């Protein structure tokens, strides 16, 4: 097990992504951040705080649970649901930035696009991830990436955030056997 991203790198990556989001979208009052539970939701809150301190405006931030839209439900044991909370201004005609911790097969984001389509029609949908580990199975690409991390499909990436795990770190684990 090795540390792929220590705490200071995570903090820098979030600050940089916040700047990139502001740069690309201009008026931050038109941005809605939607974190994908569990860790994406916390990353979205951190990004919102950064964007607020950069722009001086408050930023709409919520969560989007995608469990009911997954295409692999029948392959796994029943999953617990997480809350969806769409901020007051909704998603209609807004720049929605989906936030997740790890981008891997792209299937979570595919499900998120479906879930988002049920809520409304944003002007644009963008994707911010802390780690892109490759091995996409769908034509999906992130707009903002904290770190590109080349992995083998057998490796496991673990993202720990201080809000949940007491520490900020991204770990790379080898699977034994």
């Amino acid at each position, binding site marked *: 097990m090795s540390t792929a991203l220590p705490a200071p790198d995570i903090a820098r990556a979030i600050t940089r992504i916040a700047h990139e989001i502001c740069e690309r979208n201009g008026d931050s009052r038109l941005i809605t951040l939607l974190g994908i539970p569990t860790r994406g939701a916390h990353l979205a809150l951190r990004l919102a705080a950064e964007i607020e301190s950069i722009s001086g405006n408050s930023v709409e931030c919520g969560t989007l649970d995608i469990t009911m839209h997954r295409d692999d439900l029948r392959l796994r044991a*029943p999953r617990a649901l997480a809350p969806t909370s769409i901020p007051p201004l909704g998603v209609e005609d807004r720049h929605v930035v989906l936030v997740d911790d790890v981008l891997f097969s792209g299937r979570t984001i595919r499900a998120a696009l479906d879930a988002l389509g049920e809520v409304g029609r944003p002007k644009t949908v963008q994707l911010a991830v802390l780690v892109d580990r490759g091995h996409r199975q769908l034509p999906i690409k992130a707009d903002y990436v904290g770190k590109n991390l080349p992995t083998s499909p057998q490796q496991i990436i673990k993202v720990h955030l201080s809000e949940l795990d007491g520490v900020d770190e991204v770990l790379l684990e080898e699977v034994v056997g």
Partner: protein
Amino acid sequence: MRHLLSIADLTKNDALSILNTAETLSRASDGPMKKLPTLRGRTIVNLFAEDSTRTRISFEAAAKRLSADVINFSAKGSSLSKGESLKDTAQTLQAMGADAVIIRHSASGAAHTLAQGQWMSGSVINAGDGTHEHPSQALLDAFTIRKHCAHGNDDLTGLRIAIVGDILHSRVARSNVLLLSMLGAHVILVAPPTLLPIGVEYWPVTISYDLDSVIENVDAVIMLRIQIERMTEMYLPNAGEYARFFGLNMDRLARMKPHSIVMHPGPMNRGLEISSESADSARSVIVEQVKNGVSVRMAILYLLLAGNQDLEISL
């Protein structure tokens, strides 16, 4: 968890995961009613060999909101009324590719027979079997009580809940006694002695014959339907006397604790077990129970059908 036959089959964690899932679903549906794709392509059969309105419609609404295909099958107008056996019906449903069967039957244990019979591979959900159990009703009652009375707690620890009326014939009472006491509530059964079952002294409950002494000190009261036939069957002297001793009226309602609630699984006999004013009062959550029923049944269908039941539950 492949079937939902009885509350007795559930652990406290199973019950809480159903309630928590239902809560997430009910919050998501506060906005416009959204259809979820989760059970697309799955077939759910409503097999109702006994009359029902709200349970059948509630399960149907829940299944449709999850995008399942629903086939309604009622005793009247089907081969069940021609005397077809449960086995033959089950094999027919299996051949049609039913992923789940929601069964209501007048015989206690019918759902269990269907689940254990190896005649079909789908899930079986008990929507009321004779005088045995009605687990989805108990779950929606627990959900409603938790929402109003539990002050943010996960379970019902410390709450006092009265169930009033025909305990003897009530599957709702049996399921509720098991579930509410499992969740930590203190259950008080209030009924005339003729309407209490043999062996009730071994249930995890307190028994009372006097509604007036109980009503002031409960967080929720569940009024049960009194069937008119019970008068002719000599369980009760007459409707007026029952209403006077065991009915909920405005006088009793006024003596309840400030935030306590009034529940009824329906259909109500207004004027018999519950007065019309009490049923429509601010304490009454009877209409909300129906709404909660859809969320709870969506949670049941989701947990039973969406995942792979051969794998361990990771809730």
